[in-house]
């Protein structure tokens, strides 16, 4: 793949808990170019753990090992905490699920965006504020000046998530990791936020890792899909070819949700095969 931004080979993550070792992620390999890559799985599949480990945001009791964990020419495995601080937010940023919990409740949203810029660029406060206003306009907020001085509890969920996106995009990162960025939002708002994210990403050549539980959403939105099950990637497939997915788990996920006008009397349930864990 041309222009590879991130390369992961045989990523292994294990947690030690009271003397027991639990493998949360095993043998995960992928590379990310300027594209939208989805990591899909059910709860406990390890999809969020993968996302966090890329930024070394994993908890202390986790061990991360890999044959390769390259971001550009930086080896993330060996990177010092100081290097990581430069990377986090500046070069790789992360959008979380619920803006309610990821925004500082006692700080104006505009100031939080400006702060995100100031953290990585040596400019005056004035310029950062200007930047933040431009950014608010970019995420299609109608009245940026008014919204700038609102507090997080005064904005709606959709607007909060736009603010989050503005905050994550303002340092002009190369990769965005979005962990279920729209699952706390209503469907109509969800679509607007996703379209917006899509536009901004294409505009500035950003690579996106989109972590989600929703295969339907992801297949229309992303270019490539990694399906994770119990810490492993069971299938890696182009989103447009998902109908022809080979793995029974992927097929099961596709068939499980009921559709509008579903004529099935019973929904198919997943039969989990232990042999999936050994391939």
């Amino acid at each position, binding site marked *: 793949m041309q222009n590879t931004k991130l390369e992961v080979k045989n990523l292994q993550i294990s947690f030690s808990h009271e003397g027991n070792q639990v493998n949360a992620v095993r043998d995960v390999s992928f590379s990310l170019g300027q594209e939208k890559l989805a990591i899909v799985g059910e709860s406990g599949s390890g999809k969020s753990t993968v996302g966090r480990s890329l930024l070394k945001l994993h908890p202390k009791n986790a061990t991360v090992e890999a044959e390769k964990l390259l971001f550009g020419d930086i080896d993330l495995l060996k990177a010092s905490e100081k290097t990581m601080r430069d990377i986090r937010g500046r070069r790789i940023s992360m959008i979380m699920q619920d803006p309610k919990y990821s925004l500082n409740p006692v700080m104006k949203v505009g100031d939080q965006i400006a702060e995100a810029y100031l953290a990585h660029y040596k400019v005056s406060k004035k310029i950062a504020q200007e930047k933040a206003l431009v950014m608010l306009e970019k995420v299609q907020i109608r009245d940026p000046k008014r919204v700038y001085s609102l507090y997080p509890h005064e904005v709606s969920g959709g607007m909060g998530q736009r603010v989050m996106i503005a905050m994550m995009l303002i340092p002009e990162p190369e990769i965005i990791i979005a962990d279920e960025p729209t699952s706390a939002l209503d469907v109509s708002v969800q679509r607007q936020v996703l379209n917006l994210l899509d536009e901004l990403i294409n505009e500035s050549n950003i690579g996106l890792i989109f972590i989600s539980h929703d295969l*339907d*959403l992801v297949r229309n939105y992303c270019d490539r899909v990694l399906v994770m099950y119990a810490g492993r990637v069971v299938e890696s497939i182009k989103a447009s070819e998902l*109908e022809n997915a080979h793995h029974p788990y992927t097929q099961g*996920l596709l068939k499980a949700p009921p559709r509008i006008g579903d004529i099935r009397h019973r*929904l198919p349930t997943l039969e989990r095969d232990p042999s999936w864990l050994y391939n």
Partner: protein
Amino acid sequence: MNMINIEGLNLSFGSGSNESKILHDVNIQVKAGESFGLVGESGSGKTTVLRCLAGQYHHWSGQLSVNGNSLQHKLDKKRCIDMQMVFQDPYGSLHPRHSIETALAEPLKIHKMDNKDQRISSILKKVGLDDSFRYRSPHQLSGGQRQRVAIARALILEPQILLLDEPTSALDVSVQAEILNLLKELKEKEGLTYLMVTHDLGVVTYLCDRVAVMQNGHIVETISSSDLANHGASEPYTKMLLDCCYHTEARLNDTTSFAN
């Protein structure tokens, strides 16, 4: 006869200039054995309707009746026997310090019912769990198993109506399928009446016969599920919701081969 009859239900919070009206003149009629869906986005008041029926708000105005009995503002035991509820979050709806047995025995003790042991066994079997689950505590169960226990707890008083508050939205899709199958099966076997709140149009057309679409405390449109699926919706808001839903399903509908 209507199993659930809601006429002119109004509810507001605050007073004077701060008064905000949550429900505006809501009318819903659900026949016995029917399952009825309430859909809408967050803040539409769909859950509030359910909570009024469940006796969580005491200051609504209008007419509510269930199984022919008109409801007072306070909960009474008769209402409990007629109607039970299943909640959205299976992690918050079971008492963390009570074993499954304690949770299921509690309603029986309150209503002084006999044969506790047999009732618990048979209800567990009905929701697809075996007797070994009796002595476990909620934190030892998966989300799907917890939701089964919550359904068992709702059914142990043998109510005729189940209020379902987004019963599957906190679950993984594969588990959601299991719970929806279970709910459908229980409805057919026991002749239950469902009133379900959800934001998922797929789920509502799968389980419900009729649907009311809510927006900002108003019912925008009441429509049968089959009409909804066959583009029979007339209100723009309903069409917009459908559009959002089809948008994510778009590519799937091209390859309609997923019916099994």
